[in-house]
């Protein structure tokens, strides 16, 4: 019971510090911007630790953060190997392929209303192909190694990027389009000088959502066949062995990698779409 009470107190404390920080004059400084989510995270972790002890939760259901951290410390090389296999080989290549394809198709579709009408519904059909259905098929087709994971990721990220890019390419005001028409501007200048820049805020929406999808896709696809290395392999195997601290250690790695990926996208977005009202 004591643990639980302490947990509640710590929760309140963390929340209070964050309110102070975010409303303080310095809240726009980088340090504070980083500190706030970190404090939030620390609070969650401490409260988690307290509750696990307080309620005496069995570690095969939910391990304590301390044991997860211990795993992170001792399993470094293995975690790194898994990271390389799943994220660097599977997720990133799939993201690039899927994103590139989505961009190409979006631009192609944008050339004619006919194609847009045809491709979008078919694209949304593709988006709804659940990974538990596609992953076994791609493993069957491309083998157990990272190629099949990249394919799964490519299919998963394709639709969000496509939909957002198409929406973005159309998000120009009629005056902006008319201006291009008065220049007798052909297709390509209009694309590069008007549609693509105007599409950027939307496109980054899709690119950001896709970062997390890419990660999940690469990891989950390993559940359906993999070599004996990779984050998804480790998660499913460790889960079967009830080594949940290892499962969570991999999840932590995934979370860090995912946040970094997402954060990088956000940074690029800030630089590219500085002019959009939502960024000003």
């Amino acid at each position, binding site marked *: 019971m004591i643990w639980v009470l302490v947990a509640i107190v710590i929760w309140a404390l963390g929340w209070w510090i964050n309110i102070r920080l975010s409303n303080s004059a310095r809240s726009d400084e980088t340090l504070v911007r980083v500190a706030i*989510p970190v404090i939030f995270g620390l609070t969650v972790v401490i409260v988690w630790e307290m509750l696990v002890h307080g309620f005496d939760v069995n570690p095969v259901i939910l391990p304590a953060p301390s044991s997860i951290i211990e795993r992170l410390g001792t399993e470094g090389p293995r975690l790194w190997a898994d990271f390389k296999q799943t994220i660097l080989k599977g997720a990133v290549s799939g993201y690039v392929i899927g994103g590139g394809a989505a961009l190409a198709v979006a631009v192609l579709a944008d050339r004619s209303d006919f194609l847009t009408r045809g491709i979008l519904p078919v694209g*949304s059909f593709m988006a709804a*192909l659940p990974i538990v*259905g596609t992953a076994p098929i791609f493993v069957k087709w491309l083998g157990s190694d990272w190629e099949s994971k990249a394919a799964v990721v490519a299919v998963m990220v394709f639709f969000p990027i496509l939909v957002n890019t198409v929406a973005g390419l159309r998000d120009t005001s009629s005056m902006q389009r008319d201006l291009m028409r008065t220049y007798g501007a052909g297709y390509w200048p209009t694309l590069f000088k008007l549609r693509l820049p105007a599409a950027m805020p939307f496109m980054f*929406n899709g690119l950001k*959502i896709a970062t997390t999808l890419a990660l999940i896709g690469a990891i989950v696809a390993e559940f359906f066949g993999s070599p004996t290395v990779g984050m998804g392999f480790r998660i499913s195997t460790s889960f079967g062995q009830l080594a949940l601290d290892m*499962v969570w250690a991999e999840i932590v790695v995934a979370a860090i990698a995912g946040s970094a990926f997402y954060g990088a996208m956000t940074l690029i977005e800030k630089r590219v779409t500085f002019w959009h009202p939502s960024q000003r």
Partner: protein
Amino acid sequence: MRSVLPVLTVVAAILGFWLLCVVPMNMHLVADQAQRDGLVVTPDTPAARQDVGGVALALKNTHLIALTYEFKRPRLPSPQQVGREMYATIIDKKITSKRSLVYHGWVTLAPTLLGFLIGTSLGILLAVGIVYSRVMDRSVMPWAIVSQTIPILALAPMIIVVLGSMGIQGLFPKSIIAAYLSFFPVVVGMVKGLRSPDAMQLDLLRTYNASKSQGFWSLRLPASAPYLFASLKIGISASLVGTIVAELPTGARAGFGARMLVGDQYGQPLVSWAALFAAALTAAALVGIFSLIERVTLKRMGMAAA
């Protein structure tokens, strides 16, 4: 309605490509089988055939090409095989039968809709919180992102077990996982949408000293409508995928996910493919419904032609 012809065109193109792919994809398996059945195949050992590509093998054994379209256990079933299976399981079966995809569709759809409801509500609430509260913006958004980097298939069994130990079973745990997947696109899109009003539109409300809630209802919410619909369409697909994912750790008893799994496990690719397509069709229909609502709403809001 104007979309029918374009969609048919694209579908036809895809079908054409699919038909072409069936041959090389299945050629090796078909050749192995043909040899067992006493047909002449070149090269004449499986190991040697392994070194030849699917297309080349097909060219060497043109008499086997037709067989690739009706192979019993294909790597890539032909469209007509999938079509027949879907016809048999959707139209030919009573919808109450457990062999009917309509029945399984409903099993999957119910948690999807509930999960979507929970997920979108949560997503919109979070987005509102993030837009209006700095604390939320700074501390919750990063963790919302983190939540999406956790592989759901790893988390799902734990959620099911924890909920199960609290006595919660059946539809609800699946809905939770569906909600978990669908809230995020809604948050991202809605945050963007709620922040999309430009300076002058905001300034106008400032001059009226409009309260925060008035600002929300009369400016931020309507301005976010296009973003909301884009998010809803991604969210409903995500929700369906979530339910299907959740069907595995709940014992794969029924639903599209169970069909996919069991079809895969027992060497019945057609069962899996039909379930896969049925799931995607369901999602496309849901997305279509939202597109329709979107079109009507935006038109009524005067934003369609702008």
